[in-house]
């Protein structure tokens, strides 16, 4: 199927590549179908998440565990059930990246990771109420030596 995107123009995707967010992404709840593809760079931990319903909607994401090696979270039972997770190898953890000024100041949302079941192409953003991970974890700044800091959220 062909989809129209602002960033990449018209692209051809396979229906089997479509990722469903049954509950949407909080704040943008209307959009539930996306495709994920890596930023074209070898071994890049970065991905694009393009809406197939709204051409302007394209997130920039990070493979969280590839970048923050000591990041660890525990999936709660509702998430395991909602995503039909059978084994830890079914999932990848992604973080949305926010860029306000320059990419140098980009931040990753470690408190609201996106959990994707790659076997079923089902995804959900989870909110880690109790963790100290930051909503705005700097990616490239020196003071971002660790993501375990007092939460601002």
């Amino acid at each position, binding site marked *: 199927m062909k989809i129209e995107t602002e960033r990449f123009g018209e692209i051809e995707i396979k229906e089997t590549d479509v990722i469903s967010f049954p509950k949407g992404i*909080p704040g943008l709840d209307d959009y539930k179908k996306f495709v994920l593809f890596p930023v074209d760079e070898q071994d890049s931990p970065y991905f694009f998440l393009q809406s197939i319903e709204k051409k302007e909607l394209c997130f920039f994401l990070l493979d969280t565990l590839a970048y923050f090696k000591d990041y660890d979270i525990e999936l709660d039972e509702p998430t395991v059930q909602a995503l039909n997770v059978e084994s830890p190898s079914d999932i990848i953890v992604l973080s949305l990246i926010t860029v306000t000024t320059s*990419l140098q100041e*980009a931040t990753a949302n470690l408190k609201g990771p996106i959990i994707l079941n790659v076997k079923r192409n089902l995804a959900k953003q989870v909110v880690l*109420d109790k963790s100290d991970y930051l909503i705005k974890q700097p990616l490239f700044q020196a003071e971002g030596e660790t993501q375990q800091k007092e939460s601002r959220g």
Partner: protein
Amino acid sequence: MLVLSRKKGESIIIDDQIKLTVIAVEGESIKIGIEAPKHISIHREEVYLAIQEENKSASTSHFNVAELKSIKKP
């Protein structure tokens, strides 16, 4: 909005499956116990709202992927 008065130890049942109990009242702070089916997600509102706001910011972020190559991870 429905407003109910409850004392310490008293509960509210919502839709036969969610039970909120006032566990403790200390000044302006109230501890609430929540019993709900596992598929119900429960969040502190301010955290949830902050995540919503951040998602909106992320969705309108402009990024030049070419810049990535010039940035070194510290």
